[in-house]
């Protein structure tokens, strides 16, 4: 049997049989490695290699921050303020979720960190105000993928570095699709809020807003400190996350006295378990990613695509579909690194602009962050929202559809989407 069929087939079978995803990836890889007659030590070597990556450190920080904000009474204060500002608009909390993610996206390159931090605050709040839990989970995950689209984006930097494509042009190219996705999601929030009859809460009053603003001031300084610190070059995104945790802890333990210090060890212990879940899945996925490179599957895919179509739009649509499928099992960074030579080969063969193709690939892979089984943002959000994966999946489908629309528009209308990067980085074209 072809090892690829063993790998993918056993993986899907194991998942269908309720094997935990991280272990299903591991077991499928073990079976394939045994079939190939290779040593099993590669399994542990690749598990280590895939989580031995500095940018991943931001995830635990933001998970802990979310926990401190919730237990420490920070969330309540922030939301009271948000409520007094936009609560009178239908779907206010949902809009806040998307808006916060768009702002967050312009700070960090990591979608997972956004899901963890925004989700920890807003998913419980949205549930409390009457949104269906799966929708709260799906929206949080779907809006946080903006982190990889709106610059800065770690994925774009890596694509540019490995693929010799202008990072600046990619950043510029991410702006329009990012804003589009955000605006469409807000439209969808309005629609859902209306359908579920979620009432606007109360009426607007400046006095109320002023009072809540005062209470919320200390925690609201948090994003300002992060944003200021990053733009002034005081710290990197990961370091900013650690500073935010420190401030959050000071507020929760000392200023608001909402959590007794004696609870600190148990909070830390629980947070470790919470972040170990997505990170252990990343470790397992690393084995599969390595196997796919090792087996040289990429080349077969390129040959297949060129045998199906030679047209630019056709090739881009096929690459998009392929990346959507791949993105469900591989992390975007791994996928980019594995398939870049093939993608760029296809661009040369069909005379497709490298920046254009890069944006299609990056958006498609980013979408993989919210598609099961291995959509890390959706996984984190389901964890926070205590929703089962199938229910979250159904709820996220329309949101996936919206992002797909943007990708297809990007493929069909290069002159619109490439206008900004072309103007700013003419040398990249």
């Amino acid at each position, binding site marked *: 049997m072809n090892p690829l069929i063993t790998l993918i087939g056993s993986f899907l079978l194991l998942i269908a049989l309720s094997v935990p995803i991280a272990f299903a990836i591991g077991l499928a890889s073990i079976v394939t490695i045994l079939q190939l007659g*290779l*040593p099993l*030590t*590669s399994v542990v*070597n*690749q598990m280590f*290699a895939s989580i031995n*990556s*500095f*940018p991943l450190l931001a995830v635990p920080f933001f998970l802990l921050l979310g926990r401190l904000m919730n237990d420490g009474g920070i969330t309540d204060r922030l939301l009271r303020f948000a409520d007094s500002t936009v609560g009178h608009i239908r779907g206010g909390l949902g809009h806040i979720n998307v808006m916060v993610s768009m702002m967050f996206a312009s700070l960090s*390159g990591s979608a997972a960190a956004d899901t963890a931090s925004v989700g920890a605050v807003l998913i419980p709040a949205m549930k409390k105000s009457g949104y269906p839990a799966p929708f709260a989970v799906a929206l949080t995950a779907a809006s946080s993928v903006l982190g990889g689209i709106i610059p*800065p984006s*770690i994925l774009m*930097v*890596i694509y*540019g*570095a*490995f*693929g*010799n*494509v*202008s*990072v*600046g042009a990619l950043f510029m190219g991410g702006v329009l699709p990012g804003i589009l996705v955000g605006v469409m999601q807000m439209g969808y929030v309005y629609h859902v809020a209306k359908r579920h009859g979620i009432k606007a809460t109360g009426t607007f009053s400046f006095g109320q807003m002023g009072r809540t603003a005062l209470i919320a001031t200390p925690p609201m300084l948090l994003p300002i400190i992060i944003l200021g610190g*990053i*733009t*002034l*070059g*005081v*710290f*990197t*995104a990961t370091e900013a996350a650690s500073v935010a945790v420190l401030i959050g802890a000071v507020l929760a333990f000392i200023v608001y006295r909402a959590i007794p210090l004696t609870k600190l060890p148990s909070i830390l212990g629980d947070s470790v378990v919470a972040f170990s879940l997505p990170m252990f899945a990343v470790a397992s996925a690393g084995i599969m990613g*390595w196997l796919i*490179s*090792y087996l*040289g599957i990429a080349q077969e895919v390129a040959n297949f695509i060129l045998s199906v179509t030679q047209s630019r739009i056709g090739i881009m649509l096929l690459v998009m579909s392929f990346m959507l499928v791949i993105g469900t099992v591989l992390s975007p960074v791994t996928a980019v*690194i*594995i398939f*870049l*030579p093939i993608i760029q080969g296809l661009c040369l063969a069909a005379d497709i602009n490298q920046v254009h193709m890069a944006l299609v690939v990056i958006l498609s892979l980013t979408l993989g962050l919210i598609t099961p089984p291995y959509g890390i943002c959706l996984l984190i959000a389901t964890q926070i929202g205590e929703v089962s994966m199938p229910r979250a999946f159904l709820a996220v489908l329309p949101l996936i559809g919206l992002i797909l629309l943007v990708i297809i528009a990007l493929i069909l209308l290069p002159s619109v989407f490439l206008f900004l990067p072309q103007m700013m980085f003419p*040398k990249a074209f």
Partner: protein
Amino acid sequence: AETLRLGTVVTAPHPWIDAAEAFKAEVEEATDNRITVQIFPGGQLGNDQTMVDEIRIGTTDMIIGGVMNVSPYVPQFEIFSLNYLFEDMDEFRAATAPDSPVFEYFDNAVTDAGVGLKLLSLTGGGTRNLSSNQGPVTEPSDLEGVKMRVTGSRLDADMWQAYGALTTSLPWTEIYTGMQTGVVGAFESTISGYFSSRLYEVAPYHAKTEHQIMMSHISMSENRFNRFSGEDQAIILAAAQHAGEHGTEKGEEYDAEFIQQFEELGVTVSEVDKQAFIDRALPLHDAFAEEHGLTELLQTIRDL
């Protein structure tokens, strides 16, 4: 046919890729395709250390990369991270020649490290220069107080602190955003790395410090090598040596080609007071060699 899987972290155009392709062509021709070589570029099989561990495990056969990335296994390699170790290209060529005492030293050091690697040849990976967004650098004092990105190696930090830089270790992939936001204001890299990762977009000042010629290695699984017949071993060694020479040559060629394009890209290229940079680096050579018991090796290199 037997297939040798060869991994490297870079993508074309890069001297290591040229070396890999030269090796592949020669081995396949000389053995009539009895031995074939499959090249995995772009870090498909992992970073250098992951690949070395895969070679030890037995799934990967060969690697081409910078020697500093094997110094976790063979610490003596760290000597090549000293700035201004080689006086010029000729001395570098002399060191990498298969009959040089330097090659012999490292051939033994790699074997003695007991990590299952066999050093086939040493090669070049291009010249390393300094880039910044703070203005042109022409002498060491221009680095005074500048936040500079270095690798995690202590020696690397010491080398640049000697010029007054404030060093910070960051992963290679975070340089672009780090430069953009100002977490760091300068970094050093190969000319081709600066060019292909488009770091000139965030670091428009490129100083020709030429502080290192990147020592690189072509290595193979010791087990795998020993299983070949004497005749095949000779073919593999010869091919690796020719590939190494080709890589060094290509490195020079690319550097010249890329630097020519910099002005067009809006980069200010500056010449530096090289002697001033060398003078501050030399005391560190002796201190490093003494601390690591490599005084003899340092002398061997100086005598080349």
